[in-house]
């Protein structure tokens, strides 16, 4: 008999909307099952209901979850004891006011499994096992003093302190940089194996899941689309949706012909330094971007890639250096720039929903640059609006809606359209697909490539995802700790010998096949 069994589970919002519909699956002891799906698929909701928990405003409306002998109603008593949970964002899931040790051992003390001294000893042992720095003293620290990767591993220690039978990992590496992710994944996998725990792994990332899971359950819109062993799903997907997911995860080359790039420098950045307070963020950045080019800027969090975009856009004033656009110096401070400067450089932010004012409707948002830069009003503006909306492949009906009523992909298109409305020479795209689901993000990338071709745009594409950058950019620049460590032409990327850091980045991207994690470990070891 299976150890964990989910039968016809149904979760509904209090408003009556179904979130999870009739989900059934099972899992044997010591195995790892992955719940995979995009946002809104109900994967986290199912994971939480394995602990008999439903978030505020939702409730478990039917079905059962059985864990060993325990049924749905018994599960709350097992939380933190026999079932442990590892949350997506460790930074938010740790209480900022308590030190790490108190939080790690809390579950053990609450359930009276051991006394404080025993628990602390066990925790330190786990810190060692999870390869945390300063394992003996890290417990005295507070969450704000630690990095995301460390916190994520500490959360694993928190989960394993009571030697649970079932561990639920809810997108535990999504918030991490790719190089950190590898180490954390490895630590997780090791500790799950060592302790013989049964695990449920929730993720949107097929490649990651491929490294962790024995079984995969594919979810979409609250329904199970397909389930099977990892090998079955990866090699012989049956369901259309699964195929779609697979396709989006495969890198596609969208690089367009070099012919678009004119040998005229459009953007020149010379000796730019920038800092927040005393902390240097950008160190002596120099590069040139040709008109019509698509420059990929890649780096992890803290590399200074967003600051670079902000310096060019004028939001951050550099401590030294200059930025030229088509030969003209762009004044450093916003207040010194003229309207034409503003028009020629447009920035598109990562989080489209916060980049569009929720108080205005789409037409108002798009009409503003038309009137502001081009003095377009009335019918002319209306015509241009429709053209813009068409350009980003949205129906004209969205014009009267507010962005709060639109989906993530739609909002990002509006965001692009606003930038295009200015008829800019340079568009700065700051992680424009990172907040989107893979499938939606892929469509945006296609749109970008197409717009570039049609409008002869110059685009600076900033991303943490090296495979995306490789797929669409014809010029690649790698930022590491505020400095440019590598700048190559996209077409030469596979040929040149890379900087060590670039190598690390490249090798850290999980591949869509089982066993990659172990192989990489063998390789780097």
């Amino acid at each position, binding site marked *: 008999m299976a150890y964990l069994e989910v039968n016809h589970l149904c979760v509904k919002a209090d408003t009556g909307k179904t979130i999870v519909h009739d989900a059934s699956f099972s899992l044997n002891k010591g195995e790892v099952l992955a719940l995979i799906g995009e946002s809104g698929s109900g994967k986290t909701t199912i994971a939480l209901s394995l602990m008999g928990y439903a978030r505020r405003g939702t409730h478990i409306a039917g079905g059962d979850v059985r864990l060993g002998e325990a049924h749905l109603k018994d599960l709350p008593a097992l939380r933190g004891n026999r079932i442990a949970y590892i949350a997506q964002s460790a930074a938010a899931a740790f209480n900022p006011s308590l030190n790490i040790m108190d939080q790690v051992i809390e579950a053990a003390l609450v359930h009276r499994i051991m006394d404080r001294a025993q628990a602390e000893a066990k925790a330190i042992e786990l810190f060692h096992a999870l390869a945390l720095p300063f394992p003996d003293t890290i417990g005295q620290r507070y969450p704000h003093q630690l990095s995301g990767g460390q916190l994520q591993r500490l959360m694993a220690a928190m989960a394993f302190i009571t030697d649970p039978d079932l561990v639920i990992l809810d997108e535990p590496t999504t918030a991490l940089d790719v190089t950190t992710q590898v180490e954390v994944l490895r630590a997780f996998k090791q500790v799950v194996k060592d302790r013989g725990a049964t695990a449920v792994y929730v993720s949107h990332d097929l490649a990651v899941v491929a490294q962790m899971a024995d079984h995969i359950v594919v979810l979409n819109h609250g329904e199970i689309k397909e389930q099977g062993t990892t090998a079955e799903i990866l090699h012989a997907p049956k369901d259309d949706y699964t195929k779609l997911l697979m396709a989006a995860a495969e890198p596609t080359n969208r690089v367009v012909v070099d012919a678009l790039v004119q040998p005229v420098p459009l953007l020149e950045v010379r000796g730019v330094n920038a800092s927040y307070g005393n902390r240097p963020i950008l160190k002596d950045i120099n590069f040139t971007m040709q008109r019509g080019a698509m420059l990929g800027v890649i780096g992890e969090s803290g590399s200074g890639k967003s600051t670079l975009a902000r310096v060019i856009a004028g939001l951050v004033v550099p401590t030294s250096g200059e930025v030229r656009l088509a030969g003209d110096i762009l004044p450093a401070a916003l207040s010194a720039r003229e309207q034409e400067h503003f028009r020629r450089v447009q920035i598109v*932010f990562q989080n489209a929903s*916060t980049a569009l*004012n929720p108080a205005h409707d789409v037409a108002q948002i798009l009409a503003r640059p038309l009137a502001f830069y081009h003095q377009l009003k009335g019918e002319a503006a209306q015509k241009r609006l429709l053209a813009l909306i068409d350009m980003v492949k949205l129906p004209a009906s969205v014009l009267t809606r507010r962005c709060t009523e639109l989906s993530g992909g739609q909002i990002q298109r509006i965001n692009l359209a606003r930038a295009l409305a200015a008829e800019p020479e340079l568009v700065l795209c700051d992680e424009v697909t990172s907040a989107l689901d893979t499938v939606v993000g892929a469509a945006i990338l296609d749109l970008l490539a197409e717009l570039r071709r049609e409008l002869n745009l110059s685009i600076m594409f900033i991303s943490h995802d090296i495979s995306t950058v490789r797929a669409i950019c014809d010029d690649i620049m790698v930022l590491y700790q505020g400095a440019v460590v590598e700048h190559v032409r996209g077409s030469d990327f596979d040929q040149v010998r890379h900087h060590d850091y670039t190598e690390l980045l490249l090798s850290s991207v999980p591949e869509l096949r089982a066993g990659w994690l172990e192989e990489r470990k063998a390789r780097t070891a």
Partner: protein
Amino acid sequence: MIRSLPLSGKIGLATVIFWLLTAMFGPLLAPHPVGEFVDMDVFSGISSTFPLGTDYLGRDVFSRLLYGARYTVGLAAAAAMLASITGIGLALTAAVGSRVLDELLSRFMDTMISIPSKILALVLVAAFGSSIPLLLVICAFTYVPGSYRIARSLAVNLAQMDYVQVAKTQGEGRWHIGLREILPNMIHPMLADFGLRFVFIVLLLSGLSFLGLGVQPPEADFGSLVRENISGLAEGAPAIIVPAIAIATLTIGVNLLIDAMRGKR
């Protein structure tokens, strides 16, 4: 919109609408002029001639209440409006203005808020004499700092939003950013704040009338009605109970409505 409100919200909305209508049309319905002496007896109980009894001078409580609604609701609404608008305006100025201006405004608001309002009212009335505009100014003045505090923290947060950053990179001026990008997103939360201020002002007005600083007689706001008839409290005269209930329903109604609106978000 109305249908989606919880029951308490609907009750609140109904009460608020009731008092608004009373404030607007009450005087038209009043059977007697506000200052007329209609009864030989004082503090008489509920009767067919005087549906809510008579007050300490033998005037019709029902009529006085209908007239009083205009002062209480009107004055409180106007003062709350004035306080909110001033608070929001200054907050926007602080949010988009220079840091020095922000600091200066904030310190000034701290100064204003630290002076006890009833005593300030006492001084101002002594200095300028009691009048409706002065009452309005006092009430507004008292609640500008509170409104400013909330509006400023909202505005400063909103000023960090990406869409404001975008507007900056598009070359929009300070005032465009303040009025077009930030302000529209403050309206909703400030509406709840406005409701709270309204309630506080109703109570402040009644406190002022206790100190003899209220509306000019023979007119009276609810607070003055309670105060002038307080000697009828021991005998349970409707002249004091009815205006007290009026204040209670008005404040509770507004609060219920606000809470319901907040809960929806």
